[in-house]
């Protein structure tokens, strides 16, 4: 059993309990224990970095300080949280002057960033602590009839200099972890291109047009569904299809699932326990192909 401080962030508990639920059910089955710490806050993602980057790094660091005090590495579900926290952690470990300035800010809240812990995305934890072989052997359902389109979202991969998750132009980790569960991870046009999610709320028309490209390309490639890691990608692509129906009069019915949901289905967890009613696009097409 490897223990991590679970960083839940804001969007998952408030809007996507199906993501949290599948993660809390599946990860401990693989030997990853999730510990909830008191005092965690927002990770200070791009919208706050846009207001003030240095303050945002301090807010991210406050969360990392809690994990340092508990002597645990952090694991995140949300890719956005992963980016904010991993970026801050590595910036502070590598930039002494920034660390001094941020520690001065943190001292107002009685905290000090020491730089003793790692921030991991849960895919890294699965690869590192479980491994592909054990992951494969844990499967009790046959998912091999599925072909899916993986979409990691931007902030798992980039900025690669600070995140060090995978090769930003030819990533393999996510696809290998999907194929270990049984499905084929297919190629499709513009696979690594953004979903446009961060423009929602400021330029909805542009955001929806970018998301449409992703849905059209995965559909053309014959995907049974899109597998996501990030709650914003999920929202942009799942709810996005409802908006595409009203804005463009186009209907795609492309299921979108988080990786932990696919994992839970493969581990034999009853779909009724997974709060799948939080999906706008029904998953029948996926569920029907699982034996």
């Amino acid at each position, binding site marked *: 059993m490897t223990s991590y401080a679970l960083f*839940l*962030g*804001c969007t998952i*508990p*408030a*809007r996507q*309990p199906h993501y*949290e*639920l599948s993660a*809390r059910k599946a990860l401990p089955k693989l030997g990853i224990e999730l510990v*909830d*710490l*008191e*005092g*965690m*806050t*927002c990770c200070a*993602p*791009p*919208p*706050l*970095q*846009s*207001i*003030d*980057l*240095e*303050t945002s790094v*301090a*807010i991210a660091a*406050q*969360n990392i300080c809690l994990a340092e005090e508990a002597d645990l590495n952090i694991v995140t579900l949300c890719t956005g949280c992963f980016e904010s926290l991993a970026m801050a952690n590595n910036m502070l470990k590598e930039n002494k002057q*920034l660390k001094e300035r941020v520690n001065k*800010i943190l001292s*107002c*809240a009685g*905290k000090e960033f020491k730089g003793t812990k790692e921030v991991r995305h849960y895919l890294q934890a699965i690869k590192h602590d479980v491994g592909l072989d054990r992951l494969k052997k844990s499967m009790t359902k046959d998912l091999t009839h599925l072909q899916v389109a993986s979409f990691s979202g*931007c*902030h798992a991969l*980039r*900025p*690669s200099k600070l995140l060090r998750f995978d090769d*930003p*132009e030819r990533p393999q980790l996510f696809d290998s972890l999907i194929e270990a569960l049984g499905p084929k991870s297919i190629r499709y046009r513009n696979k*690594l*291109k*953004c979903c*446009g*999610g*961060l*423009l929602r709320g*400021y*330029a909805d028309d*542009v*955001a929806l*047009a*970018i998301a449409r*490209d992703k849905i059209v390309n995965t559909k053309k490639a014959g995907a049974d569904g899109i597998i996501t890691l990030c709650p914003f990608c999920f929202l942009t692509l799942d709810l996005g299809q409802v908006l595409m129906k009203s804005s463009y009069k186009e209907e795609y019915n492309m299921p979108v699932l988080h990786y932990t949901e696919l994992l839970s289905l493969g581990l034999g967890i009853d779909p009724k*326990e997974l*709060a799948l009613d939080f999906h706008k696009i029904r998953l029948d097409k996926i569920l029907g192909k699982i034996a």
Partner: protein
Amino acid sequence: MEHEKEEKNGAFSKKIKHQLGGETITACYQCGTCASSCPVAKTTERFNPREVIKQSLLGEKQEILSSEAIWLCCSCYNCQERCPQKVEIADVIYALRNIAIKEGHIPNIYSEFAAGLMSEGRIVPMSKFVEKKRADYGLPPLKPTGLEAVRKILSCTGFDKLWHKKEEAP
């Protein structure tokens, strides 16, 4: 014209370079790799990262700070990965946004995020509906957020005053 003065002294580029994230702006040689890697520029003419950097280097301070363009970057970092000059373009755009906000240009949606952070320590508010659903599905109650720590940090850096400037960017 104010921007001509700024251009002469390179004062605006210097200001950006001194802002966290803006350090690499002057290495740009305008090759356009960023624009051809940009999903937003492919979709709309309202944004082009190469133009944003060019205008900034030319010292067109007021035009760029009050523009819609700096808010249309989707922060995907494609440009930054591919820039042959290692200009950290997405981070430069954060620096420009940070400066714009200090000068009073803050889009409404950003004020809303900041307000959420100040009042709950999270930028997406919890709803009664989801709280009930969480309990029904057996999810544990959420631990209290470190709201007090966040407020102290925000007050220490002056962030808590920044977002009150509501004059909106176009």
